[in-house]
């Protein structure tokens, strides 16, 4: 027997998984759920950077980011409902919630946040919608009539009031977006039975990765849509977004590594099991993919893009490419946390395996469909809410 074979045999010998831990209960749907809510929270933050913190260079994407957030928030619960064994009872979480449950609050936080987001979009778009209503006919006219909330008043006084409301909504929207995603982190971080999840850093890491995925989503889709529709890309805006992405990603990546480092440094009785997990079944998805390829490369590249004066074409191409990589990094992080946490049995003596199937209720095909739905919805929304300010010169004059 070779020494390697001996090691493998010893690992197999000691690999004891509790019988009920062999099956991974939270699979792809629960990977997508924090991924989608994270994109929502992050996109909202981009919009708030302009509306609340007056980062003027982000004006070109300030409206788009909100509509983008709306497209994703509309489907944030889709994976959850598909996951539930009894989705017809889902409303019980809101109608008769258990106050001690970390999960029961999601319905309220999600609903409140959605309302704020919709209201903010309606108020920001109101002058635009009024102008569009005047030129529209038939169904579209009725739709715009509803969306303007029945008020065609675009006088200076009325718009000034709108601006106050918008500032207020954006201001309460930021803590709500942070709460939404910090809270999603807490759903995992509060599970004391799982040593990988049970860390107070979990909400922080979830929030930072949310910001990162939202900003990256905006950069990637902004450059992509503008390129394919042959429109002008505001490079000042893209450069500012890249700087914010870099800043958030520094914090995100550092905290992700610090979290693991703390486990390793303290080396409590959990560490042995965690180490076996990170260097065992998670080796390729965590170390190679999430850390090696999709964190280190964007980390360095974003630094270069932010600090070195590069031609517009280079920034455009690499900015969107790195953003796409960041979107993959965050998806990998969700996978490694959600699936990884369940691979380690609570026996702390072994780990199970998980391979997603293509065609099953919570399989890969359904996941792809769920991720496509917000993109299709975004396209439909673009027919109602013009994304770009340069689309409507007549309206621009009114709302400026």
């Amino acid at each position: 027997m070779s020494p390697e074979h001996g090691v493998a045999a010893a690992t197999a010998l000691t690999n004891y998984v509790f019988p009920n831990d062999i099956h991974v209960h939270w699979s792809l749907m629960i990977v997508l759920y924090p991924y989608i809510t994270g994109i929502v929270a992050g996109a909202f933050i981009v919009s708030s950077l302009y509306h609340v913190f007056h980062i003027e260079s982000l004006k070109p994407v300030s409206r788009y980011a909100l509509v983008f957030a709306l497209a994703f928030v509309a489907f944030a619960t889709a994976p959850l409902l598909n996951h539930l064994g009894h989705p017809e009872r889902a409303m019980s979480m809101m109608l008769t919630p258990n106050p001690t449950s970390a999960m029961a609050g999601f319905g309220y936080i999600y609903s409140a946040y959605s309302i704020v987001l919709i209201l903010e979009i309606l108020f920001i778009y109101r002058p635009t919608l009024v102008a569009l209503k005047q030129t529209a006919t038939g169904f579209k006219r009725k739709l715009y009539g509803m969306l303007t909330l029945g008020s065609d008043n675009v006088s200076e006084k009325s718009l000034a009031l709108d601006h106050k409301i918008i500032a207020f909504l954006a201001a309460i929207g930021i803590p709500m977006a942070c709460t939404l995603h910090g809270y999603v982190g807490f759903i995992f971080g509060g599970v004391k039975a799982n040593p990988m999840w049970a860390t107070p850093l979990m909400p922080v890491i979830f929030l930072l990765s949310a910001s990162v995925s939202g900003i990256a989503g905006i950069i990637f889709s902004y450059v992509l849509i503008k390129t394919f529709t042959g429109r002008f890309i505001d490079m000042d805006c893209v450069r500012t977004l890249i700087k914010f992405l870099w800043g958030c990603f520094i914090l995100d990546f550092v905290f992700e590594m610090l979290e693991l480092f703390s486990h390793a440094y303290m080396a409590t009785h959990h560490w042995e099991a965690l180490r076996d997990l990170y260097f065992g079944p998670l080796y390729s998805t965590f170390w190679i993919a999430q850390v090696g390829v999709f964190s280190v490369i964007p980390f360095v590249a974003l630094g270069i893009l932010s600090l070195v004066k590069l031609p517009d074409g280079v920034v455009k191409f690499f900015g969107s490419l790195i953003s796409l990589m960041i979107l993959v990094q965050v998806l990998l992080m969700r996978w490694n946390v959600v699936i990884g946490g369940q691979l380690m049995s609570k026996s702390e003596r072994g780990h199970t395996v998980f391979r997603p199937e293509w065609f099953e209720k919570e399989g890969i095909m359904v996941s792809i469909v769920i991720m496509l739905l917000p993109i299709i919805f975004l396209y439909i929304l673009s027919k109602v809410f013009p994304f770009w300010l340069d689309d409507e010169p007549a309206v621009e004059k009114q709302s400026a």
Partner: protein
Amino acid sequence: MIRAIEKEISQDRRAFIKKVLGGTIAGSLLLVIPAGAVDLTGIPEQIPGMRGDTAPFITKKKFAFIVDITRCIGCGSCCVADKNEYKVPDGMYRTWVERYVIDDEDNVYVDSPNGGLDGYQEPREDIPHPTRDTFFVPKLCNMCEHPSCVQVCPVGATYQTEDGFVLVDSKRCVACGYCVQACPYSVRFINPETKTADKCTWCYHRVRKGLLPACVNVCPVQARKFGDLNDKDSEVYNILHQPHVVSVLKPGMGNKPALHYVGLRREVV
């Protein structure tokens, strides 16, 4: 057209008469066979004083479950009894038995093939070093005083009764699986047939009728014990109030299990 309608009506009439007849026969049978009330007079009361207690909750009793590791022989009878009692789907376990083998290098080897359902007929022969110690550890719901599953259930489908049982209301459960994640002891699973969370109940339905849990009933070596801690004559009271080596699983979790183990080794998780 009219003929077709007439045919339909006559068919309906026939179905109606069939239903009335069926209902009458079923109703008459119900008068003869008392529904739901199983006659227990022939079966001796296994938990003293239970049959006189008809209140919704058994508030005067404090139940405890004790597993004596020094007695368990790993026959798997408890697992078989449990599977039969609840028709537990294959691959899911309300209770299971683990086999521990410790070698003279202090390596711990644990297994539980098929949850111990088939019993441990053969010794493990794949251990590279001489064996120092072996024992079996039956596992089941810990019925925690501070249950994580009850804390996290978003709809209150998992609840704690006043008499200390942690149960699942399968008519409320949404099967989100949060309780499965939260249980430190991994006693929960999502039942693929009911599509709800499921776990050991310490045979609440049997206990209410004065009967011991099915697994306790069948254990040939009395390794599983169940009783009332408020009854000073009960075996569980005497074990927990005398100098025994008694502990609970994962005490650091703070869940305060009502499931105690006699002779628990530090190697057991």
